[in-house]
């Protein structure tokens, strides 16, 4: 079918403090279920959504962070992360969960889904989408 559109989910909120991150994830999975071209962008406090080592037992919330690591199985292979947002928070890519997918065009080799981008690249990324969803 030719009605596949390019969707960008813009995630700008920290997890747990508000419901935005979890709601975004729900809609991401819906987009993937309808076989759309789904990409995620994590910027501002959104980069905290994919921080490594989240343990929510103490606040009695559901830890939904493992779901991001499963998105590769839904053919979501591009997770953009803002370099400027990491820098402002004293974070590096090593502070993020490893997010990977298996490349069917390369003998199912496991590859990283994370693409670090600067602000100019984010501007270009937004321009090339059919649909942008903001959370």
């Amino acid at each position, binding site marked *: 079918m030719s009605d596949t559109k390019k969707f960008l989910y813009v995630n700008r909120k920290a*997890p747990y403090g*508000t419901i935005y991150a979890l709601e975004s994830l729900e809609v991401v999975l819906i987009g993937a279920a309808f076989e759309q071209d789904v990409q995620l962008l994590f910027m501002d406090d959104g980069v905290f959504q994919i921080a490594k080592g989240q343990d929510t*037992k103490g606040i009695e919330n559901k830890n939904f962070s493992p779901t991001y690591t499963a998105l590769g199985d839904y053919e979501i292979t591009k997770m953009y992360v803002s370099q400027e947002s990491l820098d402002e928070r004293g974070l590096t890519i090593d502070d993020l969960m490893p997010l990977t997918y298996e490349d069917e065009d390369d003998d199912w080799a496991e590859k990283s889904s994370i693409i670090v981008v600067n602000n100019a690249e984010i501007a270009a990324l937004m321009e090339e989408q059919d649909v942008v969803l903001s959370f």
Partner: protein
Amino acid sequence: MMLHTVNKSPFEKNSLNSCLNCAAEGSTILLIEDGVYGALKGSSIADKVQAAMGKVTVCALGPDLAARGIADKVIDGIKVVDYAGFVALSVENDKVQAWL
């Protein structure tokens, strides 16, 4: 004495900044919920938090740090407390100012 609580991310709201500007010497600031991001080592606001630690005590709620995966990235000298510690701080101080 006064307990100040901050529950918003310092990268999204100016709550922590206002709190640091207005907290009197000897008071205690407790970072909770998304406010715990203010305890992050090496962030753009870390220097301001560290500077304030000369005149105020800065604490952060452990379960909120752990949930966000930053329990091992806390500025040196910030006191990590549990829920019982939160209650104790509320009792020890005669007033609470919540920076929402």
